[in-house]
């Protein structure tokens, strides 16, 4: 027997080096999946239906959580976050996210479950009167479709109380009764007990899900807002057992403050040296690709073709990634030339050689 053991938590935590070891039913050809002539799952096949004619949302889904995982308020305007909530978010960032109740202290994800990097994948199990969403961390959520109303005076809890109904081929889930102990994202945006969420689940085809979620918390935000993420079916696989609090080692190492790292000025000609594309293959053959662009006196990066994000220099060679609890990028020179990008995360490091120089 082999034992994957705890690096799982750490590895999946920062997402830099994520990728979990295989073994059991992670490659089990699941019955009922439409297939192409070569045997691969046909992810563009039509939406499956249940016996009562509703779209069947069942399946293991990997959620494309960016950018909301790190910033749920990404689409909000300045001023939409009430000042107390903004100040609390800043304080949580200053502490480098070490008080994150869910991803560090292993409490349930609460209303951020659809957006948290370390909550995905989720498995939807659908029955006519009850839909259950199973999480990788062995916890579950129940959504009642039997016509009951939300409780009028709920005992506040982490995941709240959820009722759902079908609007055409859209599952609409309303949740209230959350406690105020969880964060909405890794940056630490807070919420209060009056938070109400409305999730709209739509399965676009066999392999693709769309979740549109409205957050309404008038005690913390000026207006309700809506974010949209997509999910990709993970066919022929299943959830792994993930026990966050088994041998938890992160929190003891999370010391220091964001302001300990003083931003420095780096000369534009130094930044220009770092331009290029850096790639590596991580565990399970998972590719990772960083593109580095100097622009306007700052250094920007794009990971795996995603949105450009600015980097904060703390030395001529080291840069802090915003919103990632102190994760850093370091440019490594060999023979006077930039040779590689070193990623420093809580979980450990990864080295990405430069494969293309310049823009």
């Amino acid at each position, binding site marked *: *027997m082999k*034992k994957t053991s705890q690096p799982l938590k750490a590895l999946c935590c920062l997402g830099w080096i994520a990728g979990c070891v295989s*073994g059991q039913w992670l490659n089990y050809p699941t019955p009922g999946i439409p297939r192409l002539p070569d045997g691969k799952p046909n992810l563009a096949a039509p939406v499956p239906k249940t016996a009562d004619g509703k779209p069947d949302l069942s399946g293991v889904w990997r959620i494309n959580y960016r950018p909301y995982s790190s910033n749920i308020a990404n689409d909000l305007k300045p001023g939409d976050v009430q000042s107390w909530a903004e100040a609390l978010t800043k304080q949580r960032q200053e502490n480098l996210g070490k008080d994150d109740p869910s991803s560090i*202290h292993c409490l349930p994800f609460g209303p951020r479950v659809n957006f948290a990097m370390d909550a995905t994948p989720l498995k939807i199990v659908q029955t006519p009167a009850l839909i259950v969403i199973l999480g990788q961390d062995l916890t579950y959520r*129940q959504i009642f479709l039997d016509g009951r109303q939300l409780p009028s005076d709920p005992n506040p809890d982490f995941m709240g109380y959820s009722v759902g109904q079908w609007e055409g081929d859209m599952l609409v889930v309303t949740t209230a009764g959350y406690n105020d102990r969880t964060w909405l994202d890794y940056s630490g945006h807070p919420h209060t007990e009056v938070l109400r969420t409305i999730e709209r689940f739509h399965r676009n085809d066999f392999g693709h899900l769309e979740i549109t979620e409205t957050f309404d918390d008038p005690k913390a935000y000026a207006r309700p807002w809506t974010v949209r993420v997509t999910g990709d079916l993970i066919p022929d696989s299943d*959830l792994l057992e993930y026990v966050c609090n088994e041998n938890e080692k992160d929190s003891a190492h999370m010391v220091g403050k964001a302001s300990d790292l003083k931003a420095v000025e780096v000369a534009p000609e130094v930044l220009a040296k770092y331009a290029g594309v850096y790639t590596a293959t991580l565990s399970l053959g998972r590719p990772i690709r960083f593109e580095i662009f100097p622009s306007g006196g700052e250094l920007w990066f794009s990971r795996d073709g995603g949105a450009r994000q600015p980097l904060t220099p703390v030395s001529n060679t080291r840069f802090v990634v915003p919103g990632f609890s102190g994760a850093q990028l370091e440019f490594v020179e060999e023979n006077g030339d930039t040779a590689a990008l070193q990623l420093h995360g809580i979980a450990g490091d990864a080295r990405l050689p430069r494969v293309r120089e310049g823009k």
Partner: protein
Amino acid sequence: MRKLELLGCLALIASCASGQWLNYPAARIPRLPDGKPNLSAPTPHSPDDKPDLSGLWTYDLPAIPNAVQVDQQRFQVNLEEIVLTPEGKALQQKRRENYFPGAECLPSNLPKLTATLPYKILTLKGMVVFLYEEENRFRQIFMDGRELPKDPNPTWWGYSVGKWDGDTLVVDTSGFNDDEWILPGRYPHSDALHIIERYRRRDFGHLEIQFTIDDLKVYAKPWTVKAYSHLIPDTELLEYVCIENEKDLKHMVGVDK
């Protein structure tokens, strides 16, 4: 719907204060003339004619011989059946000194899951899902004919496949780690553990469960644990988060010898 809730409140004034869905009249429950659930009605069946185990259950301890209570968990165990191997004795001795993963909110031993807090069974096509109030955790039992993995990554709850043996659901689980007890503080297990669970819904309101514990590294022969559950109608699971405000661990000092 609201009127219904209100009526329910008037009828049961004492118990409506708590708020959530603890007094929600569930559909499809056979009732006596006075409206109470008829727990001795016949066992319900799925469309495929198998017994339908679906429902919310909680532990029961009828007046039975060999009843034991271990750390608030109540079972029927014939203690004479339990014969430790020398390796098993050594492990028991070592573990008894101070080893309680439950106090660290790690996943519970399987028999405990049916012997302390409520749990819900969902029977689906190709799968049975257990939702446990204990730690808000779930288990999946695959009924789609797959075999147990040959070289599993050891986990707290192993890998489970199920099939029907007449009117009994038989669940076969292996691939455990060696970090838990079978019965806490008494009977440990190794990673050679193999558990067979048998679930039989005797009538509408009663479930009989038998665990066969097969771990030849620790026990000279397989032994059994029986547990009994009854249906709890018209209510729901509550959220239970063990690790929230956990205070036990730092008080668990000293050695049990």
